[in-house]
């Protein structure tokens, strides 16, 4: 195990790849929710109004 930072090894590559993987997964989730909302729409279930976050103050 390394306890001292390795001077030439940048953790940036790993951060980049993991972000890609997580974001892809979470993006799928959003896409799924959007289609699910549409399906619900066919059965007359209205989606909750999206909150306009410009109205919410920084509390």
């Amino acid at each position, binding site marked *: 195990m390394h306890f001292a930072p390795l001077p030439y090894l940048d953790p940036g*590559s*790993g*951060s980049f790849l993991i972000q*890609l993987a997580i*974001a892809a997964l979470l*993006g799928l989730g959003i896409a799924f929710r959007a289609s699910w909302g549409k399906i619900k729409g066919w059965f007359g279930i209205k989606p909750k109004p999206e909150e306009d976050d*410009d109205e919410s103050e*920084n509390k």
Partner: protein
Amino acid sequence: MTSQKTNNGQLPASFRDPSGFLFSRGRVLYRQVNHAYELEYARLMESGLYERLIKVGLLIPHVEADQPPAESEAAYKIIQPERVPFISYPYEWSFGQLKDAALVTLSIQKRALKLGMSLKDASAYNIQFVRGKATLIDTLSFENYKEGEPWVAYRQFCQHFLAPLALMALKDVRLNQLLRVYIDGVPLDLASELLPTKTRLNFGLLTHIHLHAGAQKKYAGEEVKSRNGALRVSKQAMTGLIDNLESTIQRLNWTPRGTEWGNYYSITNYSDAAFEHKKQLLKEWTARIQPAMAWDLGANNGVFSRVVSETGSYVVSFDIDPAAVEQNYQTSKKEKEQNILPLLLDLTNPTPALGWANRERESFGARGPADMVLALAVIHHLAISNNVPLPQLADFFAKTGKWLVIEFVPKSDSQVKKLLASREDIFPNYTRTGFESAFKEKFIIHEAVEIRESERVLYLMESH
């Protein structure tokens, strides 16, 4: 605010950014925007993003100033941001303060993405408390967003915010002090190792910390960015990422245990009359001095800080107990107080100067002196528990502020008896007379009033 600067007035905390830097001229703070940042600055101002962020209090307001630049070749514009009354650092914040700073950063990123921009930094040092709210102070933190690009500040966000918050909430609240050692945030492999195993069952912590740390190790030193453009983060995926970070952080909570909230003053030996008398004296003296900036050292949950802040002074309310600071901050938030800043501070080991050449983050003392210092029910801890001789205490307080309101707690007081119960009494000078003669070396004693129904004395002093 800051005493350290280089020849052209440039502040040492802002040397990294090619977009511009802070400099002071006279007593005014300016930010130079460089030509390199021209397009981004124009977009921030013209897209409506600046206006929206100002409207909801997420970004520090500025005006464009008609000032000659500090470094004229690179200069595009000079702006004058609103002055932050007191610069504080994440290792001085309570859990709630760091959490709010994190949520503000994400909220800004969401608004920026909607208008075609993205934060290029997610540094906790870019957030300050202004009028009681966490606020982004670095106007030059935005870049133009190109769809497909990842969030460049993702790793920094995890290190500066998510990792310390998770450690504080799920391991030990004192681990925020790691931020003092690791100036660019808690290394994720360290956070991953310290966090309890059960955090692997939390999707957000599993991915953004544990797997993130693993990926950093696995791909360290590999070149991945230029592979045929297949590696993209769509805007939808980016939104999913930010939303997930937000909900992960929202679910992290810390409620102080042990020291019961609201019970701080019921465990002291004050009668109501003594408490009220102390408040009354403090109110009168504050009205007389009218300090612009007061520091309450050992503020507990801020009861006496509020006596001062209610007169219009700005009060930095320091305490060593993370629970007290948290309670103080939650009160200030609930009451929407604009001129009180609760902060964590160990007076026996105050915040040092940190960072490159020890000049990036200022020490406790360098951010002073204050106009008025309160040291209420604190001297016995410093003189007896921490063995600091009275002349050294007088010297410290004289350097810390012009006016001093200090409470002398004699040996006969039950709280001091408790402190002396477990140690040898090697403090022969710790008497009212000894205290006064030590402090007269540095101060003029204007008032000395015995507090009703107690053995304590409250002093008003002015340093000479």
